[in-house]
């Protein structure tokens, strides 16, 4: 009671200080949440690598380590009813978007409780509940899908947006250009995100792309194109926030080049360095770890003690252990599932 009465005058006359204090607390909480998201992705991928080495995960498995600021920053500015569509390097994005680590790990293990029932695997994570429209395995093939989701949003006069992730190598694919042309021509609320990790599999961008300044591809379609230091989660958040606003309010698409680096090989099948890139380059790039960059800021702000960081990290590790245990306990899909979901049964 007394506290309320003493605070009453302030409520009548809100001050900048009050807002600033609230804002500072909010900012710290936001930083912690972004750090948590990136840590969860990192720890998840480390366990995925371990499971792959043990033969618990098969097929192709492309890890997201080093690129986590892109997904964490992006998802932090999206609404629950927005849409995300991506390529095959999709684990981190799926988790950052809110898919349960359990359902993702179970999918990687090929188990019935996986998000796609064990039928999709690492490259085909889907979750309708959070608007995660897949993991797609053909480079660039999913980019027109994002324009199509944008078309549907416009068709229904909605104000959602669709974010589409792909690697820099996809900008040389016809589907990229066809989709960007129509998205700009028709004003579709799609945001095209180039995750430029500098290598398309083992081919450096300088060996694949005549104009390495890939954001300039936007100019061909009268679209805004911007390059972002994507190891800085707040730079990602800022650019994505503006792109989302433009899409939501004016229905206009944007091309964002997120400059990043993948700390692992293209997939679990290749070494992180030694063939197409040097160990020196890898080590130099790994100095700009998005998690370390954010953690350093928080440390400098005295807003996260070492103990608190360790606790946060342990919590994420525990979530990943739980996901592992869940996946391991989940049964393989029953054999009769082989023939389900080929077609929808009903013809209305």
């Amino acid at each position, binding site marked *: 009671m007394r506290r309320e009465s003493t605070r009453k005058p302030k409520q009548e006359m809100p001050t900048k200080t009050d807002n600033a204090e609230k804002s500072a607390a909010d900012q710290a909480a936001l930083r912690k949440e972004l750090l948590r998201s990136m840590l969860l992705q990192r720890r998840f991928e480390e366990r995925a690598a371990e499971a792959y080495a043990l033969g618990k995960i098969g097929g192709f498995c492309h890890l997201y380590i080093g690129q986590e600021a892109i997904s964490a920053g992006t998802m932090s500015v999206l609404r629950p009813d927005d849409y995300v569509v991506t390529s095959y390097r999709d684990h981190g994005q799926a988790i950052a978007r809110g898919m349960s680590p359990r359902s993702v790990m179970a999918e990687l293990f090929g188990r019935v409780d996986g998000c796609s029932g064990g039928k999709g695997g690492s490259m085909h994570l889907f979750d*309708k509940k959070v608007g995660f429209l897949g993991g797609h395995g053909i480079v660039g093939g999913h980019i027109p899908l994002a324009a199509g989701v944008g078309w549907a949003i416009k068709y229904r006069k909605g104000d959602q947006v669709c974010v589409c992730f792909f690697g820099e190598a996809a900008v040389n694919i016809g589907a990229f250009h066809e989709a960007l042309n*129509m998205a700009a021509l028709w004003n579709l609320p799609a945001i095209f995100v180039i995750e430029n990790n500098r290598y398309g599999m083992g081919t450096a961008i300088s060996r694949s792309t005549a104009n390495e300044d890939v954001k300039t591809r936007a100019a061909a379609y009268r679209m805004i194109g911007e390059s972002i230091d994507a190891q800085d989660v707040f730079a990602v958040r800022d650019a994505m926030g503006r792109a989302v606003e433009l899409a939501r309010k004016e229905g206009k698409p944007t091309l964002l080049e997120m400059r990043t680096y993948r700390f692992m090989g293209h997939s679990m099948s290749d070494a992180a360095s030694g063939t197409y890139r040097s160990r020196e380059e890898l080590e130099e790039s790994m100095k700009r770890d998005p998690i370390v960059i954010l953690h350093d800021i928080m440390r400098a702000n005295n807003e996260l003690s070492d103990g608190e960081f360790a606790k946060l990290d342990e919590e994420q590790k525990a979530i990943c252990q739980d996901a592992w245990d869940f996946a391991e306990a989940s049964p393989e899909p029953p054999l009769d599932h082989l023939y389900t*979901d*080929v077609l929808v049964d009903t013809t209305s």
Partner: protein
Amino acid sequence: MALITYRDALTQALREELTRDESVFLMGEEVAQYNGAYKVSKGLLDEFGPMRIVDTPITELGFAGIGVGSAMVGLRPIIEFMTWNFALLALDQVVNAAAKMLYMSGGQFSMPMVFRGPNGSALQLSAQHSQAWESWLAHIPGLKVITPATPADAKGLLKSAIRDDNPVVFLEGEMLYNTKGEVPEGEHVVPIGKADLKREGGDCTIVAHGKMVLVALQVADALAKENIAVDIVDLRTIRPMDVEAIATSVQKTNRAVVLEEGWEMCGVGAQVVDFIQRECFDDLDAPVVRVHQADTPMPYAKNLEKAAKPDAAKAIAAIKKVMYLG
């Protein structure tokens, strides 16, 4: 019943389904202002407006993908390819996206969409514009593949295709648009996956689909003069194939000829013969014979084109062969 063209029957189906369901839209090259390259969408832009009858750039892969994306979030696109020859550029979307989305998402994302357009050879359009794609597309689990031969089937099957919650490939006969036939008035829906006995006779079965059904009817008329009566099984749907209809006919006639526009190798006829030899082996009085396009790209010169195409004379020769006549 009204006597209308195959083209008008398709237009009726589109109009009725666009009216019935607001989530249905038609997208493709020249479908709106130009009224359709083959005039199938004539008048629809005026009636339904530019959000539902949508002209695209020449970008088959791109607009097929727009269809897939919009279907993922609940619209029911009809994607028109000016011809299926151009759709080859979009096959990644048809095969890798639309056909597999339901399966690889564990049943979460259905694809209620239609890919449609003219298929097969016309007249002297030569190699790149004269191809029958049904065997390619029917190979893919997750797709339904339809090849209507008559105006009534064109209308009834297109309505079923648009209402189906699966990706449906709808192959219209490029040479059939001007053909006329009786089409029932009002609601006329033909189920997908059901063949139709277009002619009844006990001496030999002809299995055909699409444009080749009209050739089969010519064959039947010609052979009737020689007192040979044929069954014509019009498959109508290639996938799923109505194998019971094939079996019923072959068990009656004990002989079969399979007639198709496509090439021999891995063709639709190969699938039909495989079924007949497995399920009707003891019914057969002669090996099944196939009639198909010559194993060459389609030539331009009139005489070579005629030699390359399956026709009534070749089909009659095949029937006489399985009947051990002459």
